[in-house]
C-alpha cells in the first residue's frame, strides 16, 4: 500500500478534473487494483480543519509514511516571499510543500503550473509563482535544482494544461508499484515514455503537412494547422495524438491547433495579441520551425512539396 497525498497551490483545479476522468487506469483503479491509499485530495479528502492538520503533521513528522506527494498548481510566494496569499491548514501552502517534499519518497508535479509555473508565472507574475523545480525553462523553482526526494529522484514533471489523465494515473501506478526505475526522465524531468515524441506524431493531418496544404479556419477538415493557425505540434513533446483524449480525439484531430502546453515556455509569446492561434512569422517565414528544421531547408521543402502536391489535398475528402 502506497500513501498518496495530493495538494493544490495556485491552481484552477483543471488537473484534478482531468485526473478524475482517467480511464486507463481510472482514479478508482488506483485504489482498488493498484494499492494506492489516497490520504487526502482537495476534491476527495474527507478530513477538514484539525483532522487535516493532524494528518499533515503526522506526515511531516514521519509518524505516517508519505510515499507519493502530488502537487497541482504553482507555489505562491506572494506577498514579498511570505506565501500568505495561499494559506492552507493554518499556514502558507509553501511551508507545507517544503516540509512534505522533505519527507516524500516521490514528488510528482502535475500540470504546467506545478511543473514550470504555467500561466500564473507569466510576467509580471503578481503571485510570485514558481513551479516545484522549474520556473519556466530555468531549473531551480521552489525546491531548488539540487532537490531530490527520498527515492533519489528529482520532481517528476507531468506537464500539460491540463495533463492528460492517463499520463497521471500511469505514472502514479508505476511509482506505487516500485517501477520508478523504469521511468527515465528528459532534461525537463518529464517521463520520456510520454514526452520524447512530438504531438504531431499520429496527427491525422500529417499528409497535409507533407504537401504543405494549410488549414485557414478552425474546424476545417482539410489542411495542416501549423502553417497559418499557430499549431505547435511539430515542436511540442507530448503523445496527444497517440494517447487520445477521451480515448477518441485530440486538438488537432478536432481542427484546433496544438498550443504547446507541455513545454515550459507555454503560453508562448506571453499571449501577445496576434500570437495565439496564429503562426508567428518574420517576413512571412515562421519564427518557430519544426524541431530540427533549418529555415533554408524549410523553404526548399515547402517549394518541393507544393510542386508535387496531388489535387486531392485541395479537396474535402472526408465525406
Amino acid at each position, binding site marked *: 500500500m502506497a500513501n498518496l497525498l495530493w495538494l493544490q497551490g495556485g491552481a484552477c483545479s483543471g488537473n484534478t478534473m482531468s485526473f478524475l476522468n482517467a480511464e486507463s487506469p481510472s482514479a478508482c483503479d488506483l485504489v482498488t487494483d493498484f494499492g494506492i491509499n489516497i490520504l487526502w485530495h482537495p476534491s476527495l479528502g474527507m478530513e477538514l480543519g484539525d483532522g487535516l492538520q493532524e494528518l499533515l503533521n503526522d506526515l511531516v513528522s514521519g509518524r505516517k509514511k508519505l510515499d507519493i506527494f502530488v502537487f497541482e498548481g504553482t507555489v505562491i510566494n506572494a506577498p514579498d516571499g511570505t506565501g500568505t496569499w495561499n494559506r492552507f491548514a493554518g499556514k502558507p501552502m509553501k511551508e507545507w510543500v517544503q516540509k512534505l517534499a522533505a519527507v516524500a519518497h516521490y514528488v510528482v508535479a502535475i500540470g504546467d503550473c506545478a511543473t514550470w509555473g504555467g500561466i500564473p508565472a507569466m510576467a509580471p507574475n503578481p503571485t510570485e509563482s514558481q513551479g516545484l523545480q522549474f520556473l519556466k525553462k530555468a531549473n531551480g523553482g521552489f525546491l531548488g535544482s539540487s532537490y531530490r526526494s527520498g527515492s533519489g529522484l528529482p520532481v517528476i514533471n507531468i506537464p500539460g494544461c491540463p495533463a492528460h489523465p492517463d499520463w497521471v494515473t500511469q505514472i502514479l501506478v508505476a511509482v506505487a508499484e516500485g517501477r520508478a526505475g523504469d521511468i527515465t526522465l528528459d532534461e525537463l524531468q518529464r517521463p520520456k515514455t510520454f514526452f520524447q515524441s512530438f504531438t504531431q506524431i499520429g496527427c491525422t493531418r500529417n499528409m497535409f503537412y507533407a504537401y504543405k496544404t*494549410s488549414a*485557414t479556419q478552425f474546424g476545417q477538415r482539410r489542411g495542416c494547422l501549423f502553417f*497559418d493557425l499557430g499549431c505547435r505540434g511539430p515542436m511540442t513533446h507530448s503523445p496527444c495524438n497517440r494517447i487520445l483524449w477521451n480515448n477518441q480525439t485530440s486538438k488537432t484531430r478536432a481542427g484546433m491547433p496544438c498550443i504547446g502546453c507541455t513545454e515550459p515556455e507555454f503560453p508562448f509569446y506571453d499571449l501577445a495579441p*496576434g500570437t495565439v492561434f496564429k503562426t508567428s512569422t518574420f*517576413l*512571412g517565414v515562421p519564427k518557430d520551425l519544426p524541431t530540427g528544421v533549418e529555415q533554408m531547408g524549410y523553404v526548399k521543402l*515547402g*517549394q518541393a512539396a*507544393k510542386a508535387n502536391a496531388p489535387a486531392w489535398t*485541395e479537396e474535402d475528402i472526408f465525406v
Partner: protein
Amino acid sequence: MSSRKEEDDALRAKIFHLLTDGELKTTLSPIPEDDQQFEQILRELRDVETSAPDELEQKLVISGFAPKPVNEQQCFECMYYMVHRKYCELPELMVPVEAEWWCRLWRI
C-alpha cells in the same frame, strides 16, 4: 451555368487586367515584418464592404497585389496558394491568382 473553373478564369483575367493596365496602384510596401503588421492589413481587408462596387479593387490595393514575383517571392510557394485551382485561400482574399503573382501577405 458556368463552372467554378470558368468563373475563376474570368475573375483571374479581370484581376490581371486591373493589375497591368496601369490604373490600379496597389500598396506594395511596407511589407509586414511581424504578426502585428500582418494582422493590421488583415483588419483593413475585413473592413472592406463586401457590397462595395469596388470591393475587389480595394482588396487588391490593400494586400498589395503584383502580377509578378517580388523579392524572389511568388504565390506559388505561399501557404495560402492552392496549386491545382490556382487560387488564394487566405480567408480575407479568396481570389483566383497566378502562380507567379505576389502580394504583401505572402507567407511560407
